[in-house]
């Protein structure tokens, strides 16, 4: 087996092949629409990574989808398809906002409480879906889609309710600043901070021009924890066993129902945390009236599948996804290319990662060609 074949059978190959095919399809669409693909991809790259503040924004964009990605990946590893990450995310934003604007404690207390309330919201919603599955055998895809809509309208209800509506706006009251997870939020605006940052232009640009928050770091920590839970703990072992063969798990005395609820609870908590961090980390630090779902949960599904549902793999996948979305906006501005083409590209990438056989297919082709060549050369030797 040569190196290319080995790589194609490896873990990262499917994602990489899918990304390449995604770019190829986008190039074809760009050419067909009359745009220069090389220049467009250049604009995409510089739009995502050209300046320190762009990079910062990519990480800010990646934060919620990294967490919802981990949420979907975790559930998937335990045999559940959590299509309800969207609803759990929304409930996380709602509870974080409600608690964050009602309480005003010192920061070291306020931040954990606000984040925790978002997690509790997502966890309860997830556990409810899990309970329906364990108790009544209702498929989690059906119930979690329903819950997405319920939370969507619940969010709009809270925004417009007397208790939380901010007058003359389409938003609820923002959370108290003590809830913010923005990095160096107070210090960077102080005189001392400004003076210090004046000497380091790139850091100044990142901190002052973007809402760089602790969110991405927290999400990475969550990815590491979830990865350890799945691979190295008794809980993760049971959850995986239940997901991979429910009958064998039951036969071995594992409490299958309890594990289904627990899995959805954890998955929901992660999505809820994503929602809470969006509130504490980015302006307007509150929930707003939604006309349509924002798609953080659904993009999380894409991230999870690009990552092959490996929690740590979600980290690069979320950065890739965020840079496509964020960089895509510059392509639109610089080249006049409609953002739809970027969406086609993202769609193509997700489409091809969803076909797990695609990389091994190429590996088989190479193998066959190699074997044919070997056969031909050995026959050549025989004849000679």
């Amino acid at each position: 087996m040569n190196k290319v074949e080995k790589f194609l059978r490896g873990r990262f190959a499917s994602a990489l092949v899918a990304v390449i095919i995604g770019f190829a399809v986008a190039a074809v669409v760009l050419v067909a629409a009359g745009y220069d693909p090389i220049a467009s991809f250049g604009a995409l790259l510089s739009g995502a990574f050209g300046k320190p503040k762009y990079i910062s924004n990519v990480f800010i964009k990646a934060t919620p989808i990294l967490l919802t990605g981990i949420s979907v990946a975790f559930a998937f590893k335990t045999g559940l398809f959590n299509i309800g990450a969207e609803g759990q995310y929304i409930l996380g934003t709602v509870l974080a906002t409600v608690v964050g604007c009602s309480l005003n404690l010192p920061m070291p207390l306020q931040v954990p409480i606000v984040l925790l309330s978002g997690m509790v919201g997502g966890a309860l919603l997830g556990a409810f879906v899990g309970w329906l599955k364990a108790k009544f055998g209702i498929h989690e895809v059906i119930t979690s889609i329903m819950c997405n809509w319920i939370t969507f309208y619940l969010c709009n209800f809270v925004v417009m309710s007397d208790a939380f509506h901010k007058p003359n706006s389409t938003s609820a009251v923002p959370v108290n600043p003590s809830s913010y997870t923005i990095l160096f939020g107070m210090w960077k605006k102080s005189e001392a901070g400004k003076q210090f940052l004046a000497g380091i232009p790139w850091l100044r640009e990142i901190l002052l021009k973007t809402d760089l928050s602790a969110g991405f770091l927290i999400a990475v920590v969550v990815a590491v924890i979830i990865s350890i839970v799945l691979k190295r703990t008794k809980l993760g072992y049971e959850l995986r066993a239940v997901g991979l063969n429910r009958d064998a798990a039951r036969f071995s005395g594992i409490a299958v129902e309890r594990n289904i609820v627990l899995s959805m609870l954890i998955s929901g908590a992660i999505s809820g945390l994503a929602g809470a961090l969006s509130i504490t980390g980015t302006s307007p630090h509150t929930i707003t009236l939604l006309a349509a779902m924002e798609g953080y949960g659904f993009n999380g599904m894409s991230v999870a599948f690009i990552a092959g549902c490996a929690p740590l793999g979600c980290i690069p996948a979320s950065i890739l996804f965020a840079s496509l979305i964020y960089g895509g906006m510059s392509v639109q501005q610089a080249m006049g290319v409609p953002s739809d083409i970027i969406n086609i590209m993202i769609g193509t990438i997700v489409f091809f990662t969803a076909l797990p056989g695609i990389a091994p297919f190429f590996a088989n082709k190479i193998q066959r060609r190699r074997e044919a060549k070997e056969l031909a050369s050995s026959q050549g030797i025989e004849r000679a």
Partner: protein
Amino acid sequence: MEVSPEFAVQMHGIVKKFGAYTALDHVDLDVRKQTVHAILGENGAGKTTLMNILYGLYQADEGSVYMDGKEVSITSPTEAIAHGIGMVHQHFMLVENFTVTENIILGDEVCGAAGVLDMRKARKEVMELVEEYGFDVDPDAVIQDITVGMQQRVEILKALYRGAEVLILDEPTAVLTPQEIEKLIEIMHDLIAKGKSIIIITHKLKEIMQSADECSIIRRGVYMGTVDVKNSSETELASKMVGRNVNLTVEKTPAHPADVTLSIRGLTVKDERGIEQVRDLNLDVRSGEIVGIAGIDGNGQQELVDAICSLAKATSGAILMNGQEIQNTNPRNVLNHSVAVIPSDRHRWGLVLPMMVEENTVLERHGEDMFGKGIMLDYEKLHEFTSKLIESYDIRPAGCEEERMSGLSGGNQQKAIIARQVSYVPDLLIAFQPTRGLDVGAIESVHKTLIAERDRGAAILLISFELDEVMDVSDTIAVIYHGQIVGTFAQGTVDENQLGLLMAGGEAK
């Protein structure tokens, strides 16, 4: 062998590769006209692959096929049928709620003008076939109402109806009672007398001795030769198949039964449809003895095991383990009462195939402190523990601790389950179809383990659809029919015919 019209089918130098794996490596098969030709081999030896090539389901990479001395190319089952080849699969392909006639003509319907089905003519044709071959089959009976043996005859009729001259029977006796097997052998000899040729795929030596004229042996895809069955013996066939000498008789010392470990009193279990599958069943298993339950599949065996494991609800009665009631609790509680079960369907109940071997060997006991303190699972400990099991039970390939369970062969998967269950040092070991689908070598090792466990002092409950297995291994033989124990015998006091009658609902003589 030379190509000649004396042979119904000749396959020469057949090579079939799946990727890098060579399933068949220059295999030859020469089936004389009007003979029964057996193909013998262990599981995964390539028997079925070879037949699938003949039936056009696979294409050979090399080699040629001849019929009546002429080379033929068969690229699909339709072509195989056109060449007069018929195949009866191990799992019948019948429409349960159609009649015998409807099933036989399905796909080859007799039509009148404008494509209208002419059932009367079809029925007449089927009747003629039934009479010609003397099959005891009612053409108007609905498939779900007739016995498995009759269903198999319908499958054979289906092939004959399509003009089959060569019949392939894939593991034809797996689901039959001893009486039905005898009847099948009769039918096979009848068919030969009427000019047909038969190929049977099997790994049961006894039936080859009874039914076949010649036997070709395949070992791991390699052709080992063809023997004349008359001048051969079971032992010779077995050693050719496995590649070493195999002990076909189960060697054991007399049992020394002690106290009752498992006691089942008046147990009744209903299935999901509310039908009683186990009815007022009584059974005792003592420590130090093997109690074997003989019976045909579907007579309550599955429900009995489910009830003992607390996977199914006992509607009445009691299951006592060392004097304590365990019915209607949960699987964990049953395990805690020192009950270990080797399930009948290892893929469904016994293993998590995508997980590693070392994860599968601790499926019931990963929570114990010896595999990690607190919430963590210590993979080094798992590895160590699994290495020991792999060594003492000869699970292959050696060093497979971190391989996926799905990569192991059926026999080795079964060894892993047995190793796991025995590692608990259980008071009661339930072995449900423990050798299903295993070859002679693996069966020998399973039986040895069961007897070793008995000698250690465990109570063993063996439930098997293979009558020979129950008769050879058990100290006490119980027969189950319609959810009840209809007879209990000490080993050696009962013969196959008596048991066969009881299994089929007859009266013991």
